[in-house]
């Protein structure tokens, strides 16, 4: 599905227009102040408004212009699966690593990504995940003394 650059720009413009208006409206609730004595809402209000105007200009500019046809959003038909899976893995890491502890979560995280994004053999997966967990544990907790959670298992 070859979309043109200006179709992309129009979508982005609508999104950013909303963002700009949101900031401008929010800032009205804070206290904009005056030119003599700008308040905390001064910059968010004017910058938000400018941002909205610029987004609108981008929208107008691209109503007529076509721009080159872009390749499809994902280079391969299954790219979106890998992209989504990687994001989910990142979010999951953030949720479970205080509970399970740094080393165990790292093992699971690295192992999962190695096995499922560009599938490697189980032997390779386990070797990489295990060494990553052990080395990261030694490097960050023992050597650099970073205060990372140890989890309920204590390691």
């Amino acid at each position: 599905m070859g979309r043109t650059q200006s179709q992309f720009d129009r979508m982005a413009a609508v999104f950013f227009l909303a963002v700009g208006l949101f900031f401008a409206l929010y800032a009205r609730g804070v206290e904009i102040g005056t030119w003599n004595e700008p308040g905390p809402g001064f910059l968010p209000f004017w910058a938000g408004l400018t941002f909205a105007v610029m987004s609108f200009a981008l929208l107008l500019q691209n109503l007529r212009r076509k721009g080159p046809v872009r390749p499809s959003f994902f280079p391969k038909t299954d790219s979106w699966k890998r992209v989504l899976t990687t994001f989910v893995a990142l979010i999951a890491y953030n949720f479970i690593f205080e509970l399970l502890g740094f080393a165990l979560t790292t093992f699971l995280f690295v192992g999962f990504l190695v096995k499922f994004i560009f599938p490697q053999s189980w032997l390779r997966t386990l070797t990489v995940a295990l060494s990553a967990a052990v080395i990261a544990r030694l490097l960050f907790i023992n050597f650099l003394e970073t205060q990372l959670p140890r989890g309920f298992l204590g390691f």
Partner: protein
Amino acid sequence: MNHILLGAQVLFTPINFFFCFLGVLMGTLVGVLPGLGPTAAIALLLPNTFHVSPVTAIIMLAGIYYGAMYGGSTTSILVNIPGEAASVITCLDGYQMAQKGRAGVALGIAAFGSFIAGTISVIGLMLVAPPLAKFALAFGPPEYFSLMLMGIVILIYLASGSILKALMMAVFGLLIGTIGMDSISATQRLTFGLLELSDGIGLIPAIMGLFGVAEVITNVEQEIKREVVATRIKNLLPNVQDWKESLGPMIRGGVLGFFIGILPGPAPVISAFSSYAIEKKLSKHPEKFGTGMIQGVAGPEAANNAATGGAFIPLFTLGIPANSVIAILLGAFMIHGIQPGPMLIQNHADLFWGTVLSMYLGNAMLLVLNLPLIGLWVKVLKVPYPILFPLILLFCLVGVFSLNYSKVEVALMIGFGVFGYLARKFQFEMAPLVLALVIGPMMESNLRLSLVISQGSPWIFIEKPISAVFIIVSLVLLISPLIPWIGKRRQKLQEKVEREQV
């Protein structure tokens, strides 16, 4: 002379010596690894420098920066994949040289070129920074505001794509920068009751998300196969003929890189491209460029290294970052309780001269270190990406978490990762956003202070002569694309860039 002695005293302590070494080594490593740039690497290691002295920390972080420029060339020459954006141009002739069996010479000349240019930029830094800092002492809030405005405008002007879109990203950066507690009235803005947000959106989570996570995610879309030049690399030392051909380009590249480095923007990238263009123009055989001309490696490699030195000038003299790497260094200064600005060289002479001298030593280290270690870097290059990328992500997660032990910041990083990934797809540039995010709060307080001083008259920015110059330059840059013949040329350039990226 006293200053240099002071710097040497600072530098030649075992710990600083070691951290300088560590910095350039790490820098070369991230330079070699595609998908992990100096920005992300410095952000990653910043939390781990909290327990050493500020001088030591800055010496190491600076080492990562110029070390990465160095490492980036290795991948360009051997694999035809630039490790850093700044070494894109090196691929053209460097990879061709490697194909002709001259990989060793190409790597060698890149190393010597970087060393010579690094030297030029250190000398330049020593000469230019102190007088500039004295001049900057006369700056008040209006001058600072106008200067920062000009910085952002230059960066936008240099953007390769649409000026409007670059401008939008800068304003968006300013907006994100307003999140958090207002420094003057202590009002909470857009924090949604989250304590973590009252200090503002952290620079490190933003950068790690926009540059680290987004880059990795873009790379997992499809598997990329890399072919390392298989032949054994020998004869790293260039012969007399090679030297004759490349000494001129190195010196020109070094001087050019240094001055471009002072300007805001992705200086190493621009200076490398400009140096290539100049060498091609000056050459008697411009048609041979792209087939393995040694000048095409020596000039750009020298330029991108010298640009890193130049980029330190606005930081040391004005306390204003010229690009995202320097922005993190600025963050490092603040974390270590050092106020960057015109007083820095006076108040922290040891820091300034120590760092400057360390850059000299670091460049020498890179030369000795890298020639024998090239074999090792080639091995690193052979680590398959499917194994490498989870480790890069792990570094991002740990790096951000260990800053403040905050899960909210990790979530922010992932959020910026999503945004950065989409923004790439939609052809928005991230550099103006990051710069605006960093200097946004400074700009805001200087703007408000200026308006308080002038009792609300915005004319203060024109009435002060220095400030007026900055404002005029900004206006000229912003208006110039509207002048038909400049505008048309830029329009063509933009369309060309859009087509090339397709």
